[in-house]
C-alpha cells in the first residue's frame, strides 16, 4: 500500500498564544534543536512516505524558513516531496476570497485538489501538537489487514501526569481493535486512551466523506465524520506506547519539555531503531564548556558556550551562559544570551532574548516565566 502525508500546521495554535504569536504550532521550538513539525514529518518519512502536503493558513513564514526546500527530510524531490499548500486567497471578490480555514474539515476541503491528484492508496493525516515517534508503516499494514476505512493512532495518558483538555478525544476500543466509542475528554481521571490526532485513511474513502460533509455543510471532522462512522465498524485504533506528549498550554509545553530530562523518556523518543527524528541542519560548532563550567542533568544543543552553571535545563542552539550565572529548571531557546551573575529558575526564553548582568528571574513549574522573542531584560 502506498501512502502520502498531509500535515495541518496551524490547528490548535490558539492553545499556546504565547508561543504562536508569530509562528505556527508546527514551528514551536522543542527539545533543544527541534520544531514540533519535525515529529509529524519524521514519522512520515521513516514510514517510507515521500510525498507530504503541508497545509498552511497564516503566520507560516517561520515554518517555511524551517522547512526550506525539504532537503533535511530528504523531501526535496522532483516527483512528490514536500508541497506547501497555502490558503486559497484571491484578489478578486468571491465566496472563498480571504477565507482562512479554522477547522480540520475546512482545511481538508481547501486541499481537495491535492488529495484528488494523489495516486497513493492511503493518506496519513497529522497535527503538530503531539510529540511522539510512531511506526506509521506498521499502522498502515494493520490498516490494510483490518480492511479499515480509518485507523486512529491512540496513546494512553495518565491524567495525573499529563492533564488533558477538551481538545482531546477519548476512545473506547474492543478486543479486535475496533473503536466502539469516541467522545471529547470530559475530566475523566486516571489512565485514558486518547486519539493522537494522527489518522490513516483510505484516500477514496476520504474523498467521499469530505465531499459528503461539504454537501451537508458540516464543519467538524470528529463530530460530523468520525463519530458517525463508528457504527459501521470500520474505524480502528492503532495503539502507540512510546513517549507521548501533547502541547495544549504553556504549562504543558514546559512539562513536555522537562520530561526529556528523564533519560529513559528521551531515549524512547529520539533513539528508536530506524526511526530518527530529522530536523533542519544548522551548521553549529560543537558546544564549548569553558574552564570552570558546571553542568548537570541538562540537555544541551550544539553551538552553546557555557561558562557558568546549568542544571535541570534545556539549552537550544547558540545559547551563551556567562560566568557566575546559574540557570535552573529553565528552557532557553535559540541564541539566548545570559550574561554574567544571572539567576534563572523556571524561565522560558524565546529566541534571541538577552538577559543582562546580575538579573534574577524566577517562575514556578506550574507557572513558568515566559520571556518573548527578542526581549531584553
Amino acid at each position, binding site marked *: 500500500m502506498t501512502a502520502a502525508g498531509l500535515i495541518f500546521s496551524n490547528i490548535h495554535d490558539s492553545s499556546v498564544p504565547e508561543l504562536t504569536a508569530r509562528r505556527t504550532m508546527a514551528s514551536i521550538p522543542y527539545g533543544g534543536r527541534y520544531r514540533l513539525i519535525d515529529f509529524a514529518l519524521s514519522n512520515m518519512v521513516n514510514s517510507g512516505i515521500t510525498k507530504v502536503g503541508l497545509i498552511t493558513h497564516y503566520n507560516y513564514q517561520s515554518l517555511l524558513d524551517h522547512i526550506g526546500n525539504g532537503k533535511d527530510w530528504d523531501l526535496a524531490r522532483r516527483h512528490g516531496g514536500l508541497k506547501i499548500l497555502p490558503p486559497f486567497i484571491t484578489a478578486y471578490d468571491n465566496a472563498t476570497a480571504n477565507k482562512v480555514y479554522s477547522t480540520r474539515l475546512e482545511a481538508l476541503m481547501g486541499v481537495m485538489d491535492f488529495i484528488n491528484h494523489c495516486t497513493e492508496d492511503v493518506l496519513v493525516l497529522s497535527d503538530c501538537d503531539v510529540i511522539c515517534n510512531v511506526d506509521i508503516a506498521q499502522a498502515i499494514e494493520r490498516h490494510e489487514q483490518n480492511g479499515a476505512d480509518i485507523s486512529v493512532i491512540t496513546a494512553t495518558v495518565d491524567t495525573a501526569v499529563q492533564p488533558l483538555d477538551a481538545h482531546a478525544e477519548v476512545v473506547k476500543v474492543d478486543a479486535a481493535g475496533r473503536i466502539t466509542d469516541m467522545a471529547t475528554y470530559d475530566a475523566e481521571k486516571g489512565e485514558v486512551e486518547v486519539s493522537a490526532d494522527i489518522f490513516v485513511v483510505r484516500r477514496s474513502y476520504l474523498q467521499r466523506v469530505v465531499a459528503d460533509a461539504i454537501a451537508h455543510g458540516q464543519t467538524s471532522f470528529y463530530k460530523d465524520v468520525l463519530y458517525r462512522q463508528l457504527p459501521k465498524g470500520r474505524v480502528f485504533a492503532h495503539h502507540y506506547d512510546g513517549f507521548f506528549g501533547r502541547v495544549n498550554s504553556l504549562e504543558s509545553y514546559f512539562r513536555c519539555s522537562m520530561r526529556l530530562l528523564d533519560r529513559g523518556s528521551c531515549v524512547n523518543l529520539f533513539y528508536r531503531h530506524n526511526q*530518527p527524528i530529522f*530536523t533542519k541542519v544548522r551548521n553549529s560548532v560543537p558546544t*564549548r564548556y*569553558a574552564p570552570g*563550567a558546571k*553542568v*548537570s542533568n*541538562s540537555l544541551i544543543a550544539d553551538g552553546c558556550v557555557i561558562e557558568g552553571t546549568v542544571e535541570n535545563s534545556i539549552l537550544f542552539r547558540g545559547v551563551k551562559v556567562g560566568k557566575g550565572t546559574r540557570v535552573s529548571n529553565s528552557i532557553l531557546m535559540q541564541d539566548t544570551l545570559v550574561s554574567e551573575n544571572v539567576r534563572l529558575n523556571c524561565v522560558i526564553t524565546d529566541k534571541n532574548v538577552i538577559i543582562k548582568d546580575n538579573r534574577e528571574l524566577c517562575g514556578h513549574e506550574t507557572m513558568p516565566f515566559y520571556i518573548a522573542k527578542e526581549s531584553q531584560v
Partner: protein
Amino acid sequence: MFKKKECVAMLLAGGQGSRLYALTAKTAKPAVTFGGKYRIIDFTLSNCVQSGLDTVGVLTQYQPLVLNEYIGTGLPWDLDRNYGGVKILPPYQGKNGADWYKGTANAIYQNMQFIERYNADYVLILSGDHIYQMDYAKMLDCHKTNGADCTIAVIDVPLSEASRFGIMTTDATGRITKFSEKPKNPDSTKASMGIYIFNRDKLFSYLTADAADPKSSNDFGKNVIPAMLAAGEKMMAYPFVGYWKDVGTISSLWEANMDILGEKPQLKLATGNWRVLSRHDNAPPQYVGPDAVVDNASITEGCEILGTVKNSVLGENVRVMEGASVVDSVLMGDTVIGPGARVEYAILDHNVEVGAGAAVGAPRESADGKIAVIGEGVRVEAGATVPAGAMLSE
C-alpha cells in the same frame, strides 16, 4: 551547457597520510575527523564556498570510499549545484589504458579536461590536509592585480623551523626569486602553504611539458614550480596571517584539536559569517547527567556524559558512563567509555569501545609526549590496560 567559471579549485585529496598510522588505515587523511564534528577536508571545502568558489574538483585515489560518502552530493557545503559544485575525480581508464595518479602535478594533468569544461581562466590548487581559514577570493584578486602567472600562499614560520618547509625568497614587491625545498640554511621564513593559483594556459603548458618528462616525479613542489621559476615566469607570494596547521602527525593532530578549547580558543570554528561547514547526522542534543563533571571541553550532538570529561574534544554519539573519566583526549565519535574506565592523553577513532574499568593511556605529565592511539572499531576489554603511546588497530 557549462557556463564559464572564472576560477576552478582542484583539491588534492589522494594522500595516504601514513604518519597518522591507525587513523588512516581505512580512510584517506582528508577524511580524518577533527574537532568533534568536522573532517580535515571541511576546512578547505568551507574556505572554497565562503570565498565564492562553487566549482571544486576533489582528486581522490587512496581509500576514497569514506571520503566519497562524506562528500556525497556536496549538500552540506551548498555545493550540490546544477552547474559546478563539488565533483569527485578518481583515476580512470582511457582508450589507451589505465593510469593511477603518479604525483600531484600528474593528478591535475589527467584532469585538464575537467578544467577545460568550465573554461576557467584561473586554477586554484589546494590540498585537503591543513587546518586554516582563508579567503581565496582575496588571493585571486591579488593574483589578478599583480598580473602574475602563479601566486603561492606563504606563511611566516620561525626561522628555526624553516628547514622543514618549502621556503620562498621574495623581492620587495613580493615576487618570488628563489624556492628551496626544505633548505638546510634557510634565507627566508616564508613557507609555502601548498596553495597555488595559476593562469590556466600557463599551468596547462607546464603540466604538459612535465608529463612528457620521464625523469620528473610529477610533483608541483619538486618539478612544476621550479620549472616555472627557472623559465622566469612571474611568480608572486601571497602572505597569509592566521591559524594554519599541518595535521600530518599524531601529535600535531592532537595539538590542533586542543586549540579549540580554553577560555579564548586559538582556533575559532566560527567568526561572524565565516564558519566551517560539515556533514553531520541528525543526533539529539547532548545530555549531561546529574553527577557528570565537564570542564574545558568541546562536546557535540548525541553525546551522553555521565562521568567526567576534562580538556577533551568529543565527537558525535560518545557515551561516557558513570565513574568513567576522559582527560586530555580526542574521541572522534560513536564510542562508549564503560563505567569506571579511564582515558588519558589519547586519540580514539570512531566506533571504539573501552570496557568497564579499562585504562587507556597515561597522565599527560608522565606520558612523555607519547599519545595512545586506538583505531576504528577496536574494542578494549573490560579491565584491560593500554599503555601511553600504544597504537592499536583492528
